[in-house]
């Protein structure tokens, strides 16, 4: 099976996001970057499918130079090849990203395209769905169970408060959600192997941005709360506050 996994490099979940002084951008100088956690599920799923059906796993990532370490992470998990679509700066409009990925994916002859359900930096949650339209392929998002038999795909996807069982045929696009699998850790052997793989570099084909970020703000500071008490005896007071002050119960 010829599988493509689209991955993104994002700030570590522990990062405290700092803005530049003019608040027009995020200050990247102290950020530790990692492979997007949801993409790990995609890589893992690709590797499991490869182990089952044979084939090749290609990692595709769009971003500036710094993303090579995220690509290496995916390679270290066990992917075979990697393509880096180069840009000077990440586009703000997810549609631009999807277009560039689609241009690359179109001619790859992939049976399956996997990606994380969302990148935890801009949280747009758009690329997997857009790719479906651009490539004219079935695309199932937020998948927590995947079964592929021949070219028949049965996927279980998470929707608010329930699960949906969806069917389609290959080639298809699947966006992955926590629960689908347990991503493997990149072993030291894998890291050494990854070091030897040449990452194919090419400029990304960029379309026009139709989404502009005017500026950023920090979320409004919450007023310091109060400690109602240090034993169960504080419960009546807590309930009173919730009822009378906050009016939420």
């Amino acid at each position: 099976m010829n599988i493509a996994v689209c991955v993104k490099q994002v700030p570590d979940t522990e990062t405290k996001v700092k803005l530049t002084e003019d608040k027009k951008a995020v200050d990247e100088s102290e950020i530790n970057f990692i492979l997007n956690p949801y993409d790990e599920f995609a890589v893992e799923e690709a590797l499991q499918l490869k182990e089952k059906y044979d084939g090749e796993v290609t990692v595709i990532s769009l971003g500036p130079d710094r993303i090579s370490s995220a690509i290496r992470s995916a390679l270290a998990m066990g992917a075979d090849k990697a393509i880096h679509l180069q840009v000077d700066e990440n586009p703000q409009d997810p549609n631009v990203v999807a277009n560039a990925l689609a241009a690359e994916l179109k001619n790859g002859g992939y049976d399956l395209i996997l990606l994380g359900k969302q990148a935890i930096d801009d949280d747009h949650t758009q690329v997997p769905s857009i790719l479906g339209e651009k490539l004219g392929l079935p695309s199932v998002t937020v998948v927590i169970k995947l079964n592929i038999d021949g070219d028949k795909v049965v996927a279980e996807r998470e929707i608010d408060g329930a699960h949906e069982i969806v069917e389609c045929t290959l080639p298809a696009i699947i966006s992955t959600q926590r629960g689908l699998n347990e991503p493997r850790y990149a072993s030291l052997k894998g890291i050494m192997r990854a070091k030897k793989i040449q990452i194919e570099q090419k400029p990304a084909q960029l379309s026009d941005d139709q989404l502009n970020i005017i500026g950023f703000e920090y979320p409004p500071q919450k007023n310091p709360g109060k400690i109602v008490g240090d034993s169960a005896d504080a419960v009546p007071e807590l309930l009173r506050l919730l009822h009378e002050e906050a009016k939420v119960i």
Partner: protein
Amino acid sequence: MKILIYAEHREGQLRKITYENISLARTLGQPFEVLVVGNEVQDIQEQLGRYGAEQVVFYKNAQLENYSADGYARIVAEAVKERQADVLLMGATSTGKDLGPRVASILNAAMATDCIHVEMEGDNLKLIRPMYAGKVQATIRLTSAVKVVTVRPNVYQASEAPVTAKVDTKEVSAPDFKTVVKEIVSGAKGKLDVTEANIIVSGGRGMKGPENWHLIEDLAQLLGAATGASRAAVDAGWRPHDEQVGQTGKTVSPSLYIAVGISGAIQHLAGMSSSKYIVAINKDPDAPIFKLADYGIVADLFDVVPRMIEELKAGN
């Protein structure tokens, strides 16, 4: 600027986010219509009218009984064109997040996901959406001709403003579906999803084990709340994945979030910090959750929670 509001429904029932979006559209002072796509949807006229929708269009086909991503996308895109809408307004629900980008792609529109603030600015929209799991908020502008906007549930109040809704029903031909929904498996019966709930009671590693979860469930039931969990509780196998709140779980903004035995790791806070009121019950006074909590009790949860249940049952 004409707004088309996508009415979300499941199993024939309209969902709350639709009313929230109608209420929002009213405040924008722009003409708007509500679009329903499906087969059997109940009480359209009555429900949508109650929240102030004067014009409703119902695109109907028996094959649209269940949601299908690409099928629905085609119909919704068609509706946007036919109704000459400039803005498609949806909920940032699982449907909105799945369907929105597809419609946008067909219409060559730009899309803003998960907005927490929508306002008119000249003849465009000023949109604010959280990024980096809510650690910052971005003000964005869409420059495409048609714009797709999804709004985070529970941010705008659904307020009633009764009118008589005019419903135009249109039989549409169903397109070919590339994906087919075979079945919807509901979670536990009557279980409320965290993203929609007004009150959430969440448990963490401090709960010590799944055998104690009845405390969370009982408290939730008394409050009419959904139950959530930290990743530690989910990873330990105590709770299902779909209950996880946080950066790699669900993002929620209920009116009340009660964190029980949850330390408040940055990844957890990312998912619930926009809750209106936060209550923390934790025996560690230094637990970071207290920094965010409006009300806290520093004590053993195994004393506090039973007491809460007791007091609520007694109706105090």
